[in-house]
């Protein structure tokens, strides 16, 4: 089932001219009039390829300044690309800023008319949908007051109502869900879900992974103006979140010198038999086996602690041999080994660190640390760190339940 391509971008790039002095503007003007390309420009977007088919939904994610808004502006035609081309077919509803084009002196009603004209609605369509717009905006008598008296939330309501009435083939929107009160946000999300169910096509920029995962099937992660990951929404958002977690976590290299010659020293830490320093990939609900080897200088039996933390350092779980009343097995006079298994590991998808420490026989002093990264994959949309076992009571099947919501479980 391949639907028609509504939005496509080929090797799209954007570079902004460097303009500091008034003289630069003059030389830029002269250069542009002659049609000479700018050699000295700041590249903000480089070689982006996108394709969105009818009925698809794409989330654009990335840090501030990654080029998301620039890409959006290129897609909507507000900006002209420096390289490459964009082609869009169908009616585009671009919602780069709610209330763009509203005039503060005019009433809401007047602004609806103007806004609708800007989006390309004919006067007849406008009249037919006016009641619908006013009802969706739901701002009461304010509709006949000048927009300058509106709260920012009301401007947002009115702006979204116009776009909702537009019934666009492609909806391109930037962080709209972040504004407006709770009930209006819900209304927007519900509208978008209905829009998507009705075969609508969506390109959404959001910093909320929750919204991106809820509304989009594909995601594109932009970093420094380039596509870092593009594909299934869960894979991309998890990579993105893992990247952020890793960025937040303070690097803690193993203090070799301190451990050297100490009473207890870690020899190795294996996750599912893998000793390399690359992160272990594990499916959610998979089994994790941790092997630890400890060198004991004086031949005393160590206590071994195994801990799991999220990659930003938030502890998830920790346990020691002493707590469970077991001892590592002696391999020879100075070497001890222990192995622990976590069947059906209930960690939620994301990146984690597995840590091991040897403690002295009394379980008091901590000697050494080795960390290994662990990445859990899966399509879960649950929040938090772990899946707590649960069962729903008193439930009914909601009308028009979304298939996607079920498939994750």
């Amino acid at each position, binding site marked *: 089932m391949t639907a028609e391509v509504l939005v496509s971008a080929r090797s799209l790039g954007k570079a902004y001219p460097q303009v500091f002095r008034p003289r630069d503007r003059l030389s830029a003007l002269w250069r542009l009039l002659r049609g000479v390309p700018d050699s000295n420009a700041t590249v903000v977007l480089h070689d982006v390829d996108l394709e969105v088919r009818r009925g698809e939904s794409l989330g654009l994610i990335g840090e501030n300044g990654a080029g998301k808004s620039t890409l959006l502006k290129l897609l909507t035609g507000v900006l002209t690309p420096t390289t490459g081309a964009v082609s869009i077919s169908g009616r585009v509803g671009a919602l780069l800023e709610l209330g763009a084009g509203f005039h503060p002196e005019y009433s809401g009603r007047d602004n609806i008319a103007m806004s609708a004209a800007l989006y390309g609605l*004919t006067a007849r369509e406008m009249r037919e949908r006016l009641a619908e717009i006013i009802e969706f905006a739901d701002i009461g008598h304010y509709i006949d007051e000048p927009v300058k008296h509106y709260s920012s939330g009301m401007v947002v309501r009115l702006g979204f109502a116009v776009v909702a009435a537009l019934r666009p083939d492609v909806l391109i929107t930037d962080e709209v869900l972040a504004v407006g009160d709770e009930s209006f946000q819900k209304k927007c999300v519900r509208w978008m879900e209905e829009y998507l169910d009705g075969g609508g096509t969506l390109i959404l920029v959001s910093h909320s992974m929750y919204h991106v995962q809820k509304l989009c099937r594909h995601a594109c992660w932009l970093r420094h103006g380039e596509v870092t990951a593009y594909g299934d929404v869960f894979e991309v958002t998890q990579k993105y979140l893992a990247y952020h977690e890793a960025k937040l976590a303070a690097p803690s290299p193993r203090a070799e010198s301190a451990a050297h010659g100490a009473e207890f020293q870690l020899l190795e830490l294996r996750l599912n038999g893998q000793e390399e320093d690359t992160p272990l990939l594990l499916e959610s609900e998979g089994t994790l086996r941790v092997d630890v080897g400890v060198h004991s200088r004086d031949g005393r039996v160590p206590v071994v602690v195994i801990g799991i933390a999220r990659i930003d350092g938030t502890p998830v779980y920790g346990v020691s041999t002493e707590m469970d009343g077991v001892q590592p097995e002696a391999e020879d006079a100075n070497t001890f080994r222990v192995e622990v298994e976590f069947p059906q590991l209930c960690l939620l998808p994301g990146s984690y660190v597995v840590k091991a420490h040897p403690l002295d026989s009394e379980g008091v002093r901590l000697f050494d640390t080795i960390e290994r990264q662990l990445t859990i994959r899966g399509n879960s949309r649950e929040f938090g760190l772990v899946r707590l076992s649960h069962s729903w009571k008193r439930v009914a099947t909601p009308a028009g339940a979304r298939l996607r919501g079920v498939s994750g479980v």
Partner: protein
Amino acid sequence: MSALALTSHFVRREIRNRYLGSFSGGLWALIQPLIQLAVYGFVWKYVFRMSAPGGADGPGIVAFLAMGVWPWNAFSESLVRATTAMQDNAALIGKIALPREILVLSSVASSFLLHALGFCVIVIVFRASGTPIQLLGLPLAAFAFVQLFVLALGLALLFSAIQVFVRDLGQTLTQLMPLWMFAGPVLYPRDYLPERFRAWLDLNPFTFYPEYLREALLGYGTTGTPWLVATIVALAVLAIGYTVFRRLSAHFEDFL
């Protein structure tokens, strides 16, 4: 089709914006040139004590001046306003993809709409008060306004595009407009100039319009610039303005 609807929206909005909150509303568009006319007429008659063009057989000083003041106001106001159209609408341009020519077009169109309306009113007043207005000249005058609109639109497109890059243009233009007016036969007939300067007026693309209107409506004087030349100049200016605008408009966002 939708571009046309959008333009009419912008024109309506522009006209409303101008008179929003003023007591007289759109009447101001008529009152302001009337005051201008009164001042110029007074200065002519009582300060400079110059004889009316054409003498006793001429159309009278007020009618003579009116044929220059209204087209000039439409022309100069539309240029000054439209030159900053991109800057004034920067917020809109950055958020909504729309053909940017529309912003210039609606700015020029609204100025012309108001002043053409004022001109119609004043012509009716003249006719009613006994000034001989040649009815056959009316369609010619209407077409001259269309030509003037084409000329103004071409220049406005050119200026508004350059203004994005060179911000001094708008300021300079405001200062230059009076100079431009006196460089054309707006407030005086061509034959008041010394012989050797008369031909210079033809270098001013605006010269054609007051002379043509006076000839067509008042039967006064002759038009120096041939009609065909004026038309070609207007169309050529529009073509140049549009070309430059199209070439530069892709980069407006980077410089606004």
